[in-house]
Structures are given as C-alpha cells and as structure tokens.
C-alpha cells in the first residue's frame, strides 16, 4: 500500500514519448542525445537545443559494451524516468522512417520512389557509420 503513492518510480505511470535527435555530441561519451520530444519540449524557439536535457540511451542487454548513437534528425522513442515531470528522458530505440523531400531535388531524382531515407541524407553530408557497419564494413575505430 505504501508504494501506491506519488514518487515511486515505476508506479507513477509509464510515460512514453517520440522525439527527434538534435544533438549527439555527449561530453561524457556514453551515447546520450538531446532530443526534441514532441508535445513536451516545444520547438527551437521555445527551448534551444543546448537547454534540452540529455536523453540517456537504453542499450541491448546482449551487447551493452558496444553502441552507436542515433543521427541528427532520427526519430527516437523512449520514456521518462521521472514520469510526468519530464526531466529525465530515456531513449529506447530509433524509429526508421522515410523523409519526403522536394521531388525536384537531385537527391529525390536519384530515388526511383521520390522518397529518400533520412539516413541517406546524413550519409551524403557527413557519412553514415551505422549504414557502413550494417553493410559489413569495419569501423575506423
């Protein structure tokens, strides 16, 4: 009975969210990201990226020593450790998606469907380590 009160993590309701990654340069190097959580953290004009709390990653239990971070623009799903307070976000995983771009853009013209994967956009500009690793290539590190 005593646990059924406020402030008992795990019993206060599991509040999950979806957001977009805006910064992955975690000073502690443990894969945290700044995520613009939809409906909670507004837009850039409301809360600048630098003020967003670091969202902690949740890693797979069979491979927790090796991890990669989501890319800028990736949509991630997660939950709040502090429930409705919304100050301690945890990222559970990335939601793969397809980005609709201007059909007239060179990138869209290269794509037979007219749609471009957001990871491909990142790859074109700065290299997509995840995609390379997924293709069986060795990481440089």
């Amino acid at each position, binding site marked *: 009975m*005593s646990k059924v*009160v406020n402030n*008992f993590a795990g019993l206060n309701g599991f509040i999950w969210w979806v957001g977009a990654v805006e910064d992955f340069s975690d*000073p*502690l190097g443990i894969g945290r990201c700044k995520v613009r959580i939809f409906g*909670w953290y507004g837009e850039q004009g409301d809360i600048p990226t630098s*003020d967003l709390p*670091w969202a902690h990653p949740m890693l797979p239990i069979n491979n927790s020593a090796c991890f990669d971070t989501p890319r800028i623009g990736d949509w991630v799903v997660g939950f709040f*450790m502090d429930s409705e307070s919304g100050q301690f976000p945890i990222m559970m995983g990335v939601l793969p998606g397809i980005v609709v771009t201007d059909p007239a853009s060179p990138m869209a013209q290269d794509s037979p469907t007219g749609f471009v994967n957001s990871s491909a956009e990142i790859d074109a500009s700065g290299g997509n380590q995840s995609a390379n690793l997924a293709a069986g290539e060795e990481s440089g590190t």
Partner: protein
Amino acid sequence: MAATFPGTPVTSGLRYPQDYSITNLTLLTPTNTWDVKNAMVELSYHEDLFNNTASGYLMLTESTNYVELMQLNGNEFLRMTFSTTGQPGTEIDKLFRVYKMGPRRQENNMYTMSYALYFCSEEMMLNEQYKVCKSYPNQEIYKNIVDILQNEMLVDPSKINYIEKTYGSYDFVIPTLKPFDAINFMSVYARTASGGVGSDMIFYEDKYGFNFRSLQSLMTNPIYHKYTYNPKNTDPSNLNSDQFNILTYEILNSYDTLAGVNSGIFANQLISADILTRTRTVTNFDYGSYQKNPASVQLNPFTITNQYTNRKGDQLNQSKQAVLKLIFSNYDETSSPYIKEASSATAGNSTVVDTNHGAIAHNIYAETYVPYRTAQLALANYTRIKVSIPGDSNLTVGATVNFALTSTNPLSHTPDAFYSGNYLVTAVRHLINDRYITILELCKDSVPTPYSSPDSTSTIWQNSAKGIFK
C-alpha cells in the same frame, strides 16, 4: 512587490460586529459599467492557501433583466470593494472575471429572476488557455516563477505581492504545462532561502495578490489576534470583544494516526538512484528529529503525538519504510572525477563545472524535497478547524491566529490544552448577505501542551502493545 501583510486588527470605527460596507460592486460589460449593489443577495469571496487563485460567486435577484440588458456571456469583469464597516484601509478590492452563470430561477413574479454569477481571477482563465514551454538553465526557482507570472501570464507587477527567495540553481525544462502547473511543478523542488528546513513552498493568491512562500515563513507571521469561543449576547460597550469572538466552530480533523503514518508525516524513506553514477542514496525523514531541529519552524512547541512504543520497539517516527519512495536523481554527480573533467572541458575552464550546456544538470536535491515535502504539507493540515467569526476584511490566507478553545469540561473554563494554540489560516471565505461573516479554515502542525507518554515498563502497556489482555 508590496507585502503589507499581516494587517493590524482595527476596531475603532466598528459600529456593530457583522456590519459591512460595500463601496463598489460593478459589472463591466461591453455595453456599460453596471452597479449591481441593489440586486445583490449574497457575495462569497474565497481564498485558499492550497489553490493558486481566489474565486467566488455573486448571487443576484433582479427584475430588470440584466442578463439581456448587459449581454452577459461569460466575458465580463466584476469589481468588488468591501470591508468591515468603519475599518478604512482594510478593504478587499479585487477585479475578477465572471466565467459562469448558475441556474436561473424565477422568483415571486414572472419578472424577477435569481441567479449566481461565478467569478475567478483572470489569471485562472489564462491558465486554462495557454501552456508554458520554456527552459530555465542555471536559474533560481523564484526567478522562474516571476518570469512565468510577468512574461507568460502578463501579470501586472502590482498584483505580485510576495515572492520568497529560494535556494540553489536548477536546470528546468518546462515540458509544455499550464502556467500554474509549471509554477506548482517547480514549487515542489523549491527550498526556501529565508529560514526553515525542507521544501514547503506554495503558490497562492490572497487579498493583496499572488504569493510564493514557504509554510514555515508563514508560521513566523506575528499572531493577528486571539480568538475565543464564548457564546453571549452582543455587548455594545465592548465591540472589540465581540468582533474577535468566534460564532461557531467545528473541529474537522482532530487526529488520524493511521492516515498520518500512510502520508509519511511521522517517518518516510526515499531511495534516490542516479543512473549516471550508478549510486543509490537512502534518506530517512524522522518527525522527532525534524521537530527538535532548531531550524525548523512549527506553530506550537510540542509534537502531535506521544512517545508510544509498539511491540517491535519503535515509535511512530521510527518506522522509516512506512512510506517508501523511489525516484531517479542526480545527487553529487560531480564527485565522479570523469564527469567533473568532462564537464570542465565542456565549459572550457578547468575550475568551473559547466552544468548548463554541458555534461550534467544541476543537482535537483531530491533527497531534501521529497522526504520533507511529503511530511511538511501533510503535517501542516494535521489538525483542522473551521470557525466563523464576525466579518473581518483584514483577514486573508497565510495569517496566523491564536484560538483559545474553551475546554468542554464543565468544571474547567481554561483553554483546551491541545486544541487551543496557534493556527495558520489556510482558507478564508468572506460571506456577505444580510450580515457579514468570515469563515476560516485553521490548521496546526503541533500542540501547545506536551502529551503524556505511556510508561513503557508497565505490564498493561506492554501487553496492550502485544494485543493481549493480562
């Protein structure tokens, strides 16, 4: 920010207790400003320490069809100015938004209607219309609250009465909350910087405007007046005595040990875990230690219970896990050399830990606010009394009064040893109809006389604690 509270009791101009003077009762509508004093049947104005805004209702009976004439539709304002007769300077002078009309009832003839107009502060309406989505990096909480009032709700500075300073800087992201929800959210974390211990800050509206204060600082307010319950006929030669004589009283909450244990008043325990440093901290709240702490403020000198020891050898304040809480916190993350170095590198300064745009957020001090606030807010409402007194427009929530409850023992006319004493006014209703009375909700967290403790060596007590008769 004018903090004129508490007012001083004035009785010099009093003609008769329960007299009132309404100098202004006007409805501002798009068509005109209407004086509705003559149609007023009842006016009720209500403040509550645990509500963010004041509210009330105005009951009208009229046969001029105000509803159509004034085009009442829920976007009107009500200005009211009233006081106890002959007490200039104590007026309650407020402007409210009329948001609702109650059921309309036909009276004696087909042209006369009775109905109530419900009103609240305009800020309550704004609170329902807007959300706050904002970050406050490295800021003190009281400044954030002023920012929400002034920049999000556009509250005129004259309506912000008293904002108590808070201790420490925090990094909050207000996650798209209603303005008052955002204020209440931060109040939970706030620790007063002006004396007292724990975390008992509250945001409320009184007759002067909006306030953000700790319960302990309110408890240090000078006692406004001593009230007695002494039924008698009015004595015109001693109006002062009549004005401060209680008309009726009702003890709403005497004690409830079971509820007290369940709400963590006597003892509670917090386990705070930090996922970053993988540390866990256990913090216990012990009512006995809290009560003895010279820094903590209570209304009366003694504890609300005696020293009864149960069959397991514990007093009420020693069963720490009666209320167990678990939260994720960030206690002392900079004690990790790696985090400290990474944070310093981010700040570009080897001696300053950047907790703003850098690696970690400021400590939220969960180990202080969770255990203390759990107990303090429940404790402040432990004993609750409702009293009605002759109307006193000087009284507002947050005042402290002394209540001398005459003992019901017919052989003793001394004040009750435990239910007399100092009380905090947690709610006020000014009710004006054919007379003016003020209804107060009074709460206290302690008693003026110590309770006797049972003799723990006595066989009957030992056996009773074991649940047996011997």
